[in-house]
């Protein structure tokens, strides 16, 4: 969280907490040097200062998606999972759109959790598949019905989620923060173990909810953004912008999701740090800062690969 932009500042609780978190031997000169300020030291230099890396670029494309090509065997999410990204549609026609997923195969829906937009119903569907690729748990969230619409801003179901109606988005970068969580097999097969958030706020109204007595586990062998993990590019691959994709090895709590969102459209590790989330829970993050290596990491070691050719990195500036 950035230092406040006016009023009285505390060297310890405002400035040091933002710069490096030290709690003893705090010196203004050292903090100024760490922050990169030059010249005479002054606390006023820190008004509005943020230690988070500036988010310069994002990916925008059509029929392109990102997925690890080599299976990541250590990515079993038996304790639940969280998937999140900043997204904006660029399609001019209302169309189905795949957002993100994690699963056990890059050729089928085996042990997959997938999140996708259904254009004909103006809903985002969150689904969990079993080891045979059969859908077992599902919640569908109408974006245009109350109370969801007050959060999503996608009010016209005929227009749908598209370039002309991207919904409530970040005022600076123009993207919406969307998060899906699943509590995992230990929670049981109830649909209430699934949650969907838009800009850090939970959408509470869902339909076509499916619960199962067949326990299943989402695997993290493969993760994907802009597509499912179990299939290649389709007409439903996201046509639009993507930034700061993150995968956690557990279901974040509503307050954690909100805190991550409130940290802004910055790389997910920085957002997690700001939200006080243990770094071991962050399986992967990708910042799309001009390439796939500048800003990536996480506890699981995925290497995302670009699939398709129609897209590029763009600058926010």
């Amino acid at each position: 969280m950035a230092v406040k932009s006016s009023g009285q500042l505390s060297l310890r609780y405002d400035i040091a907490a933002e710069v490096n978190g030290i709690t003893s031997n705090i010196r203004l000169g050292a903090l100024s040097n760490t922050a990169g300020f030059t010249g005479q030291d002054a606390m006023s230099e820190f008004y509005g200062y943020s230690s988070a890396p500036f988010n310069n670029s994002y990916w925008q494309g059509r029929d392109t998606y990102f997925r690890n090509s080599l299976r990541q065997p250590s990515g079993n999410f038996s304790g639940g999972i969280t998937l999140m990204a900043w997204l904006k549609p660029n399609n001019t026609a209302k169309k189905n759109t795949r957002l993100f997923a994690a699963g056990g195969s890059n050729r089928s829906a085996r042990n997959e959790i997938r999140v996708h937009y259904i254009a004909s119903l103006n809903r985002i569907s969150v689904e969990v598949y079993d080891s045979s690729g059969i859908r077992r748990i599902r919640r569908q969230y109408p974006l245009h019905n109350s109370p969801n619409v007050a959060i999503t801003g996608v009010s016209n179901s005929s227009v749908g989620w598209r370039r002309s109606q991207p919904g409530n988005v970040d005022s600076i970068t123009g993207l919406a923060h969307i998060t899906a969580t699943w509590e995992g097999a230990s929670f049981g097969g109830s649909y209430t173990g699934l949650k969907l958030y838009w800009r850090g706020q939970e959408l509470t109204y869902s339909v076509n909810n499916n619960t199962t007595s067949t326990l299943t586990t989402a695997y993290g062998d493969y993760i994907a953004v802009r597509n499912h993990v179990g299939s290649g590019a389709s007409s439903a691959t996201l046509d639009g912008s993507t930034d700061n994709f993150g995968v956690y090895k557990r279901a974040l709590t509503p307050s954690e999701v909100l805190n991550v969102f409130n940290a802004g459209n910055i790389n997910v590790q920085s957002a997690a740090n700001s939200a006080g989330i243990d770094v071991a829970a962050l399986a992967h993050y990708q910042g799309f800062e001009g390439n796939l290596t500048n800003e990536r990491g996480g506890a699981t070691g995925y290497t995302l690969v670009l699939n398709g050719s129609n897209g590029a990195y763009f600058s926010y500036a």
Partner: protein
Amino acid sequence: MNYYLITSQSYSENQSGIISFWDNDESNLMISASADYSYPYSQSFDTYDDMQSWIWDYDTNEWKNWDEDDEEDDPYGIDGPFPEEMDETII
């Protein structure tokens, strides 16, 4: 770059253009290629948006051939009403 709807047989014979995606049964595919693409095709589109608009035309429902994710079996439609017992659905 233009887009062309071609058969999988045509693509296997000519191997020309960049594949965008396949239809559900992989009998047809969309490719992008230059305006002077000279091999047989079923339909051409000047832009990506033109191609997507043709697929996602809800009057023709062409999209049903290209995306098997859509929930065709939803009995409640876009605005319901949705019965309360639906929350207790067991597969």
